[in-house]
């Protein structure tokens, strides 16, 4: 039979006509739509029973308690630990996404040296060799105060090197107070819980100071007035009872102006050194303070009177997410606290009970700024994943030529580009970690963060790496040290003190240390996810305080810090830059993967790398929204993206730090005066 074209056509047509009466099209349609609902490239979460594992957040110094929601061994979420004595059942946004940090795209899975994969032992040998060759050894511990820190200090002592600590902003005002109390003064902590009036000098009490929401909780149901003096309309400024919009860098002038009012009106508490301090205050008339701060003189006077009338009042220095205040400014704020009688008083600055020293033979903690420039030949940096970061410049200035920098970090980020060797360490939740006393806290505490996840086999804990170096360099007693041994030693010291109590996150129970039988028992309690908190400070007579500025030179420096703010008239195109955020956004570690929800995906925070600028200022520089702009400081520059905000002061540009390069802008002012720096804007 011959097949004609007509037959073919008929067959084709008939097939098409019959198709709707067969299952084929429906099956196809069905399968295709099911495929779209289960794209093979979409991950399918594996079901399982949800369990909770207790641990502690070690990303920033606050040391919040948390529970990791897990399915089998997989972490699927973070829940706050209710009743936790440090964090009071709160967590910051970053903590909620912190369980994903182990899989961060920048995760360093293999130790590296000079751009090549390397065994940690090889890096340790290199370090030991350099130390042996007489290079000066130093360790920068970004999370000081831990039990492990004592290993670092031992190592530094053995190597004849230095143990460097970063400046923790919350601790700076406490150090300033301590300096006023002379030799043998106790450590101090803020007792904001019991204060009635709190004046903050830029300290972000409501959005990043200590544990999140702490102040709101402290002050719930209490009439606590919170006055915030700062240049940024930050969340803290927005939520404060009163915001004093001072010009950038004028904190010292404000502190002196307030002191002047207190002294002039006879409102000051009895303190030593009032005479020499008055000599300083005489050079800061109220009008001058008003002019420098940009506030009205009456506002300053009223604030001072209010602080005295509505006591107990306390001034909180310590800068904020916008960087540290200068040493002189802290001194002026400490003096203000002294004049308010806040030192050693409940609702002010209280003396912490001292913590037993971990061990003997420790190198002293040297603040990074105080290290000799160009002196360090071998530097070990243990980087913090979040927390305060510093400009690399401030570190680089201390390094000798050909210095060997070894970065201990789970991530290939932060200082990684400047380090010759990177040691891959376990990420958050992957190893035993510790959370020492939160900076600024009135009581010491010590929490352990047991590992919840399995670390990659290649990861080496910082203490293990130190042991490798010790073995190579022949430092006795250190080559067997581990994190656990250090923590056990700390637990033993706490147990011996018989002070405080232990809070177990798992069952929210509290046990007095005195009721715990042995140091090992205390350790195992802590290692199951618990926190030890010291007893409340013992009531004691307030220490004798002497106002600063006894020496003429010191007075002069304080006056210079107060009267030479950066906002004075400058050349054409000059303006003042301040960092718009510090903690969390920029660190020597990485951002929590989902942190983009807060800035990239919403307008809640400035995006890292953005330059916030008032539209009127922008117009002056002919800048458009979204334009790339080169921010030029005297010895650094940074490319930022312009974003308009009419909440920014005119003549000010707020830089949201993206990389450490952004922080370099402020490095020149870092050690001394202020976080505000005069910059120029240029087209990118």
């Amino acid at each position, binding site marked *: 039979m011959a097949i004609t074209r007509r037959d073919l056509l008929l067959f084709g047509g008939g097939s098409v006509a019959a198709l709707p009466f067969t299952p084929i099209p429906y099956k196809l*349609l069905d399968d*295709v*739509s099911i*495929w*779209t*609902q289960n794209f093979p490239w979409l991950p399918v979460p594996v079901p399982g029973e949800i369990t909770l594992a207790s641990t502690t957040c070690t990303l920033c110094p606050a040391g919040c308690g948390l529970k990791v929601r897990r399915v089998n061994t997989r972490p699927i979420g973070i829940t706050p630990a209710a009743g936790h004595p440090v964090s009071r059942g709160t967590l910051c946004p970053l903590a909620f996404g912190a369980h994903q940090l182990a899989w961060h795209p920048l995760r360093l899975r293999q130790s590296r040296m000079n751009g090549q994969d390397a065994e940690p032992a090889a890096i340790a040998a290199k370090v030991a060799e350099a130390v042996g060759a007489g290079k000066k050894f130093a360790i920068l511990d970004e999370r000081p105060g831990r039990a492990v820190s004592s290993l670092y200090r031992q190592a530094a002592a053995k190597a004849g090197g230095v143990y460097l600590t970063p400046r923790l902003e919350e601790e700076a005002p406490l150090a300033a107070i301590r300096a006023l109390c002379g030799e043998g003064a106790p450590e101090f902590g803020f007792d904001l819980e019991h204060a009635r009036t709190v004046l903050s000098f830029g300290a972000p009490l409501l959005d990043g100071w200590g544990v999140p929401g702490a102040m709101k909780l402290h002050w719930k149901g209490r009439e606590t007035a919170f006055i915030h003096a700062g240049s940024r309309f930050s969340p803290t400024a927005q939520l404060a009872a009163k915001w004093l919009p001072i010009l950038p860098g004028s904190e010292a002038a404000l502190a002196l102006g307030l002191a002047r009012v207190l002294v002039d009106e006879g409102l000051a508490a009895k303190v030593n050194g009032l005479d020499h301090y008055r000599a300083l205050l005489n050079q800061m008339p109220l009008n001058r303070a008003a002019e420098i701060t940009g506030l009205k003189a009456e506002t300053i006077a009223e604030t001072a009177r209010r602080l005295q009338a509505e006591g107990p009042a306390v001034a909180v220095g310590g800068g904020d997410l916008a960087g540290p205040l200068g040493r002189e400014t802290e001194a002026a704020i400490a003096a203000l606290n002294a004049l308010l009688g806040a030192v050693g008083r409940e609702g002010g600055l209280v003396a912490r009970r001292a913590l037993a020293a971990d061990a003997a033979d420790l190198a002293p903690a040297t603040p990074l700024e105080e290290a000799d420039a160009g002196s360090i030949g071998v530097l070990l940096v243990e980087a913090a994943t979040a927390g305060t970061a510093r400009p690399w410049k401030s570190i680089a200035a201390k390094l000798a030529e050909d210095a060997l920098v070894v970065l201990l970090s789970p991530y290939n980020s932060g200082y990684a580009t400047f380090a010759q060797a990177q040691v891959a360490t376990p990420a958050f939740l992957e190893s035993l970690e510790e959370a020492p006393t939160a900076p600024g806290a009135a009581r010491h505490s010590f929490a352990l963060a047991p590992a919840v996840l399995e670390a990659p086999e290649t990861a080496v804990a910082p203490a293990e790496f130190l042991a490798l170096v010790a073995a190579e360099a022949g430092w006795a007693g250190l080559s067997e040290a581990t994190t656990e041994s250090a923590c056990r030693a700390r637990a033993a010291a706490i147990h011996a003190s018989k002070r405080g109590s232990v809070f177990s996150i798992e069952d929210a129970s509290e046990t007095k240390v005195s009721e715990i039988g042995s140091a090992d028992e205390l350790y195992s309690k802590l290692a199951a996810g618990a926190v030890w908190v010291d007893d409340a400070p013992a009531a004691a007579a307030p220490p004798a305080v002497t106002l600063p500025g006894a020496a003429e030179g010191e007075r002069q420096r304080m006056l210079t810090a107060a009267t030479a703010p950066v906002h004075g008239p400058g050349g054409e195109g000059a303006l003042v830059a301040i960092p718009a955020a510090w903690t969390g956004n920029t660190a020597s570690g990485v951002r929590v993967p989902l942190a983009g929800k807060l800035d990239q995906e919403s307008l809640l925070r400035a995006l890292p790398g953005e330059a916030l600028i008032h539209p009127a200022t922008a117009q002056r520089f002919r800048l458009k929204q979204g334009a790339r702009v080169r921010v030029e400081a005297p010895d650094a520059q940074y490319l930022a993206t312009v974003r308009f905000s009419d909440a920014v002061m005119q003549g000010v540009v707020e830089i949201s730090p993206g990389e450490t390069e952004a922080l370099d802008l402020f490095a020149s002012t870092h050690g001394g005066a202020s976080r505000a720096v005069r910059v120029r804007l240029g087209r990118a």
Partner: protein
Amino acid sequence: MTGTITKPAAIATVEKKWIVRGHERCSTARFMGWLAPWIGLLLLGLYATYLCFRYGLGETHLDNRFGFGLWIFLDLAVIALGAGAFFSGFLLYILKWKEIKAVINSAVVLGFLCYSGAVAVLAVDVGQPLRAWFTFWHPNTHSMLTEVTFCITVYLVVLTIEYLPIILKNRKFKSIPSFLVFEWELHKLMPVFAGVGVFLSFFHQGSLGGLFGVMRGRPFAFREGFSIWPTTFFLFVLSAAAVGPSFIILTTKLVEKITGKRLVKQDIYRVLAKTTGVLLTVYVALKSLDTLLWLNSTSIRAGVAPWEFYEFRPFGHATLFTEIVIFGMIPALLLLSRRLRERPGVITLGAVLACLGVVFNRFVMTIQTLALPTLSFDEFMIYLPNWVEYAVFGGVIAYAVIVYSLSYRYLNLFPQEMELQLAPKEVNDVSVR
């Protein structure tokens, strides 16, 4: 034949045999030259479509606020302009206005292109086109979009059926007897399809308006109305019917301009222009009434100050003025006047303004609605489409131009073409209404 390459001249000879007997058409090479840039644009559009399908709609500048953007706006505009197909069908087959015969084929092709183009763009615009059929499986009968989906799908089938006889009339196709017989019988029953088309068009043009009118959450678009239909339902039907004839005028004039031929008689233009004029007048009157009602009652009850909508630049009061007066009242009056209609230039101007008016109205309803803030702390937002969006739509325009060019070349879109070719002067043997 094996191994030999068919010479261009041979192709041209074969190609000529597809052209309607007696039609004068340009050379094959010239036609290819005309198509080439459009094919380029079509390929670009296909590439942009690929980007959207491969990576996701993040490749466009659409965002959560502007879930509807350039595509939806132009789809609405194109569907309104494509209303010429249903409305001329209505005039020809239902009201028996014979003059419309001169443009009905072109109108059907245009309608088909507008609708199929719009559906093609929609297929890129929706996030999961493979699930589009769920609407038929789980339709929410309360949703205007359900009605639109049903109507447009069925109407596209109707337009395809209407297009079919025109294609089958191609010289080659009609030499196949079964095609010819099928065409003849289909053609005889065309009034049924035209009637169905009119019915469907009435509802989906209206529902497209209802789409915005029912959005309670958007006080700028929300309108009260009759029963389940907000006033925008009726305004959209009316405006689409009004500009449909104008779009036919414009496209026909454009084809005449490009080909340098006269394709329809002047009085056809006058009939179409008058239709637009009358309908547009009614539309403008009702639209004005609706606007007053909305400003003075509906929006106030929704908690928005009457004129706040027009406080956000670039959408000032001028927007409203432009929409109603410049693109509404003026073309309506131009086309309503018998004296002015005598001048072809006036007809063109009126038709251009009327078409711009409906496009502008659709723009206002989609883009301005979404740009305006709703919450007190909302920002007014600007949205600029990116090249992907332009390219996809450009691709659809290119598709339309290519298919229309092919149709013009090989099909008898304008039955009067031959006659006018022969007529030394205007043949005024059709009574003017």
